[in-house]
């Protein structure tokens, strides 16, 4: 087999594995969230389908697939049909640059455990997370419903606002690692993970991605008690399912980014790299679920004030201080 062909086959294999793992993980993350939330609220959660309710995601899938695919009157048909796809696909594509393990020796050849190691990996992640906005915006607009439109306008302004501080929280990491490649950022954290070197950036990044994932303290785009369900009010069946699963895929992606940028990626004692990586990602996802179980929703002006007047200045200051310290150390 020629070399480029082998590389292409390896890439396709990696894509297949990632696709399967991420989708399964997303489905079971939904179950885990429901279970954990239930236990936090002294309920049982889903426990009827299969052992401990383990078949619940499958039952949900069957329900979503057999439900009527409803199209609202006077909706913009093609955009309405396309928007959930944009939402799920942009989330899935981001995983292409995330390194989930140390390079592997296979057939006498080193295989990096990342689909493609771009030298602008961080920017690739930022690009696709900013494109995810289109799914929400177009979905809400095409629905031709006031709740959906309000939800997507809220979502747009929220995502734009918090993307800034998210990007600025990554800047110190890039400065410390001296690289935009995610693999090299993980390599640079072999001794000390960046959460210890720059906890401020870690906190800013964590808060910003909570807002980016539109989850509880920041879930105004889909605030149930005001907007019915926000931007996906008019969606049903598998199209709603795509939005829903896109959200959980996004959760896994953001968890992986925290792991790669601040928790040292695959580095860790004793266990193999891939396991360390998964444990860290799942811990971050668990943290998100915990936050959902224990926080109230912010008011909209509070959300904007916090983003622009607190988070953004702190992250700018953090970039400046990190730069000064790095310059001082030479």
């Amino acid at each position, binding site marked *: 087999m020629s070399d*480029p062909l082998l590389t*292409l086959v390896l890439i396709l294999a990696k894509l297949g594995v990632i696709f399967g793992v991420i989708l399964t993980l997303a489905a079971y993350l939904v179950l885990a969230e429901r279970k954990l939330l239930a236990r936090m609220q002294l309920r049982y959660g889903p426990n009827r389908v299969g052992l401990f309710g383990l078949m619940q995601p499958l039952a949900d899938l069957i329900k979503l697939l057999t439900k009527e695919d409803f199209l609202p009157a006077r909706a913009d048909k093609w955009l309405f049909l396309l928007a959930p796809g944009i939402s799920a696909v942009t989330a899935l594509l981001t995983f292409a640059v995330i390194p989930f393990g140390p390079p592997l020796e296979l057939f006498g050849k080193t295989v990096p455990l990342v689909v493609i190691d771009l030298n*602008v990996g961080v920017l690739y992640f930022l690009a696709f997370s900013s494109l995810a906005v289109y799914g929400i*915006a177009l979905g809400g607009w095409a629905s031709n419903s006031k709740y959906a439109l309000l939800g997507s306008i809220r979502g747009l302004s929220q995502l*734009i606002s918090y993307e800034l501080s998210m990007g600025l929280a990554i800047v110190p990491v890039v400065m410390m690692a001296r690289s935009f490649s995610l693999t090299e950022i993980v390599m640079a954290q072999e001794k000390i993970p960046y959460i210890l070197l720059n906890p401020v950036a870690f906190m800013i990044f964590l808060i910003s991605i909570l807002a980016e994932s539109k989850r509880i303290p920041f879930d105004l785009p889909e605030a149930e008690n005001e907007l019915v369900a926000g931007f996906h009010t008019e969606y049903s069946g598998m199209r709603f399912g795509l939005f829903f699963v896109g959200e959980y895929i996004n959760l896994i992606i953001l968890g992986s980014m925290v792991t790669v940028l601040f928790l040292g990626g695959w580095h860790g004692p004793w266990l193999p790299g891939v396991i360390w990586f998964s444990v860290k990602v799942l811990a971050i996802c668990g943290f998100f679920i915990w936050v959902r179980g224990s926080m109230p929703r912010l008011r909209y002006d509070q959300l904007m004030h916090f983003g622009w007047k607190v988070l953004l200045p702190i992250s700018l200051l953090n970039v400046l201080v990190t730069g000064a310290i790095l310059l001082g150390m030479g």
Partner: protein
Amino acid sequence: MTATLLFYILGAITVVATLLAIIQRNPVHAVIYLVNSFFALALIFYLLGAPMIAAWEVIIYAGAIMVLFLFIIMMLEISPSSDPVRSAPGWAQWVPIFILAIALASCTLLLTGLDPVIAEGLPRWHASPRDFGYALFKEYALAIEIVSFQLLFAAVGAFYVGRLEQKKSQREGSS
């Protein structure tokens, strides 16, 4: 050879998508065409060996500026259901964007297959972010400073105009 061909295809996609963006009557559809053209432009940058600029093209133009456009369009559209253009039948309207998107996707696939990181085919002169930064802030430092001052002036001016409007409307409201 393949690179040249790809360049022309991508250039054609950019031009056609931009033209369609101009002639669309529905502003949201125009935004989608323009985003399509930005993607093609980003791929051209990547083809020319500048992955960094390609990424910025998508982040800034497709991800930030067009989202702001979309935001304004959605804010200003007072009653979307009364727009006669919007309820026009879909098929004919949507064929061009599908053709463009499919062409773009196949170009991307071809480009990934030809990428020097994966296979030898294109020249290996991919500019690294480091080289890019040095070129920007050493060779063209003065130009960059002038441009950023211009942006600062624009921002201050926008703030000033916005403030004036607000005060006037407050005074009108109170009287």
